[in-house]
């Protein structure tokens, strides 16, 4: 009974999308549409969490196949994730949508986007899957084009739709391999059929490329930092927090479910891709000044972390180590869920800042904590969570990932044994850099003194947006304090995919989590939290007992130079400089040129930094140039004389006749 409900809800969402077009002009349209979207999402979420497995075939789609829909535990997990995110985004949008300049370009596509993502998860045959997949891409493309007058949006839209089509076609090829020549497009048939190793590896590659480009793995990420920021903020939250997870779902579905038994070396590309994405993504984020682009890059990092978990799961699965595989997969899923939570909050916060100040460049922000205290608190929690700090949820999932890495010496293959620690180092590097990145982002944008006048105008955002942010921030804290509950909720899906599961965590004393029974390594977020609070209060009480609690507000001391304006504050670029010096030459082929005025000249010295996005310069631009050069070359054929065209016909004829004579 679950699938019909979900399908009904999707139909409802699509109806909303259709209805939204005409009514978008009216003032009540946006709250109405967003409100009902959120309600439907909530309904689906509940249905996914409470309902059981079930399947359904509708007589549409591919004629002789019909549209297969099915919900298993994996689907349920992602369904819940998607619609939780959808609910939050809708709630946020009820308030945020008021500031939308062109609602007609957003309202119709928002519900359609969510419907598409839901359909992807419940689809049970290749046609329906890709249909929903492309629907999702198309709707989100339209949302990216919402601000269609800006050249950036147009560029983003072009690149995004092209890459989305690329990923869809790649997945299509993968399904083509999985479906035997007689065209068994239903997932059930694919599971039944077994592929020779070569083809299976090809399918893995295609799935990694197809799903990876949608999820934002390097170097297929190029569209992501363009498209996510271009969309309205609640949509950015959905794209970053939820749509990337749908891509991850696609990878899991194909590789873990449809593809059958795995070979150990499959883990190698996945792990490498994950590690690269995690490190490079966060390094890009560290160099970024645009708040939303920064968040988009950090999405790449988190996707990389998830893929590290998936790669480990593959490795253990191939070596028939279900317990370890379960640990890895749980870590991956858990982190996906967490990322949805805190990335949504961060994009909501960015949206609120954008509304309040009209500014996305953090170099012009600062001191927002005083004008927007509640948002500041929520965003701070999200920042700490994404930086994997205990006792919040980000740390819980990364801790599980590390535990998996510590199991890796048990792997029989040397390659993996040596690769996994390296990847672990990359993971630790990514975590530390993420912390640096979000200290920078939060410290520059929200703390300090206002860097431009736009901050003075700023006001705290409306209550719907605050409710959405506060709700998700609270969820971050809860998921951090009670990771056992989440892990147990994930277990059925994990059990389904790798045939093993983590020991039930809810039974353990004081809700601590213990990844594996044999090695008694455990972590208890709740206890750590209690300790911290206790310590802090003790400290506070003690201090105020022992010493004075007198406070004098005074001007900045600033090492003896008071009264310097905000211009003397540390800039975002300056903050990133040490890290750029360390990692830049490798990651961006970065370089700095300092232009010193000659002695006696009072003009300021200038420093210019050069960064290169290597993915663009080594992959995309050459490709574009090649295509354009070919186009230029072929374009000559537009201007020939009829006689020349006739001679083409003549040559074709003679050539074919010759070929025929030689053939026979």
């Amino acid at each position, binding site marked *: 009974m679950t699938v019909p409900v979900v399908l009904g809800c999707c139909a409802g969402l699509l109806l909303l999308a259709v209805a939204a077009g005409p009514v978008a002009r009216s003032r009540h349209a946006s709250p109405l549409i967003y409100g009902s979207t959120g309600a439907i999402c909530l309904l689906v979420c509940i249905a996914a969490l409470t309902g059981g497995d079930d399947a359904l075939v509708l007589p549409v789609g591919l004629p002789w196949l019909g549209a297969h829909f099915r919900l298993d535990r994996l689907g349920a997990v992602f369904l819940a994730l998607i619609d939780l995110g959808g609910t939050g985004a809708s709630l946020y949008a009820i308030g945020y949508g008021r500031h939308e300049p062109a609602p007609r370009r957003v309202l119709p596509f928002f519900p359609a986007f969510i419907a598409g993502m839901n359909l992807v998860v419940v689809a049970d045959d290749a046609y329906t899957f890709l249909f929903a997949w492309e629907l999702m891409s198309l709707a989100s493309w339209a949302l990216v084009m919402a601000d269609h007058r800006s050249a950036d949006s147009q560029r983003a839209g072009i690149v995004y739709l092209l890459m989305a089509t690329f990923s869809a076609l790649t997945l299509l090829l993968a399904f083509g391999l999985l479906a035997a020549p007689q065209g068994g497009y239903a997932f059930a048939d694919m599971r039944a059929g077994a592929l020779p190793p070569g083809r299976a590896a090809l399918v893995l590659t295609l799935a990694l490329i197809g799903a990876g480009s949608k999820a934002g793995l390097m170097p297929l990420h190029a569209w992501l930092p363009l498209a996510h920021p271009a969309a309205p903020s609640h949509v950015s939250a959905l794209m970053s927090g939820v749509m990337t997870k749908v891509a991850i779902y696609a990878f899991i579905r194909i590789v873990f479910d449809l593809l059958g038994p795995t070979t150990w070396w499959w883990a190698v590309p996945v792990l490498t891709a994950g590690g690269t994405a995690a490190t490079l993504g966060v390094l890009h984020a560290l160099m970024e000044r645009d708040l939303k682009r920064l968040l988009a890059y950090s999405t790449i990092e988190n996707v990389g972390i998830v893929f590290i978990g998936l790669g480990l799961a593959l490795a253990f699965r191939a070596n028939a180590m279900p317990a370890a595989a379960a640990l890895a997969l749980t870590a991956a899923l858990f982190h996906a869920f967490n990322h949805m939570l805190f990335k949504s909050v961060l994009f909501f916060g960015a949206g609120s800042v954008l509304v309040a100040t009209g500014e996305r460049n953090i170099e012009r922000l600062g001191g927002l904590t005083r004008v927007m205290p509640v948002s500041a608190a929520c965003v701070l929690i999200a920042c700490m969570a994404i930086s994997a700090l205990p006792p919040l949820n980000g740390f819980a999932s990364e801790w599980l990932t590390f535990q998996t890495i510590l199991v890796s010496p048990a792997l029989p293959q040397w390659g993996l044994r040596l690769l996994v620690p390296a990847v672990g180092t990359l993971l630790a590097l990514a975590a530390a850099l993420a912390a640096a990145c979000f200290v920078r982002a939060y410290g520059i944008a929200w703390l300090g003194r206002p860097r431009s006048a736009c901050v003075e105008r700023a006001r705290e955002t409306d209550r719907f947006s605050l409710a959405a942010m506060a709700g998700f921030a609270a969820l971050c804290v809860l998921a951090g304090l009670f990771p056992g509950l989440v892990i147990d909720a994930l277990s059925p899906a994990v059990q389904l995919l790798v045939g093993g599961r983590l020991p039930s965590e809810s039974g353990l004393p004081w809700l601590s989590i213990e990844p594996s029974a044999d090695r008694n390594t455990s972590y208890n977020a709740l206890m750590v939290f209690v300790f911290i609070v206790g310590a802090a209060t003790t400290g506070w009480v003690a201090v105020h007992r022992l010493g004075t609690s007198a406070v004098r507000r005074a001007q900045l001391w600033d090492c003896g130079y008071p009264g310097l304006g905000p211009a003397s504050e540390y800039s975002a670029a300056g903050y990133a400089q040490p890290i750029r010096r360390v990692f830049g030459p490798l990651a961006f082929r970065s370089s700095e040129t300092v232009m010193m005025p000659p002695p006696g000249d009072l003009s300021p010295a200038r420093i210019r930094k050069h960064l290169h996005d290597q993915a663009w310069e080594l992959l995309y631009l050459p490709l574009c140039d090649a295509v354009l050069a070919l186009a230029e070359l072929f*374009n000559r054929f*537009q*201007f020939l*004389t*009829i*006689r020349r065209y*006739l*001679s083409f*016909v*003549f040559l074709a*004829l*003679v050539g074919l*006749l*010759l070929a*025929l*004579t030689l053939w*026979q």
Partner: protein
Amino acid sequence: MGAAVPHDFAFDIAHMLAGALVLLSLMMLYQDRLYALINVLALHALVLALSVAWQAWVHDAPHLYITAGIALGFKAVIIPMALRRMVFRLRVHREIETVVGTGLTMLAAIALIALSLQVMLPVTEGVDPVSREDIALALSVVLIGLLMMVTRQNAVSQVAGFMSLENGIVLAATGAQGMPLVVEISVAFSVLIAFIVIGIFLFRIRERFDTVDVEALDAFRGERG
């Protein structure tokens, strides 16, 4: 009437006529004066008419006489006259500019004949010798006609090339004994040729097919940027 002709004799005549057609096509290639070309073209059509008539006589297929008549009247008389007028009216100068030298085109034509024989003869064991000959030679006529269209830079000679191509096809059609709709087809073709000639008149296409008015064209072809 007819039909009492001994088979081999019929074959010889048909063979001779078809061969003559190929020869004439080669001669067309060889011409470098427009009027001479037009004369050869008329001759070509005449021979075609003869061979069609011969087929009609031999296989006693009266409807083929219509085709022969068309070939004779329309292609051997009217069109050549029209072309002469055109050369006169449009003041096309009498030389034929070739893209490739005549000698080379002749060689190419020889090669094409060889090719067409090589293509056709092996694959037509099934059919009777007359059709076999006709079809093979017809193909070479077609190819030479096409070759002429591509190697001559002059509207008239290109029309001539197209006509010889089309003659070859009619030859093939008549050679394939008992083929229905031959008449309709030859009619349709005549219409086609009429269109071409009219078109040349209408649009004053002097030198080459592809210039109606060169200056006007550059503007519209200007997708260079």
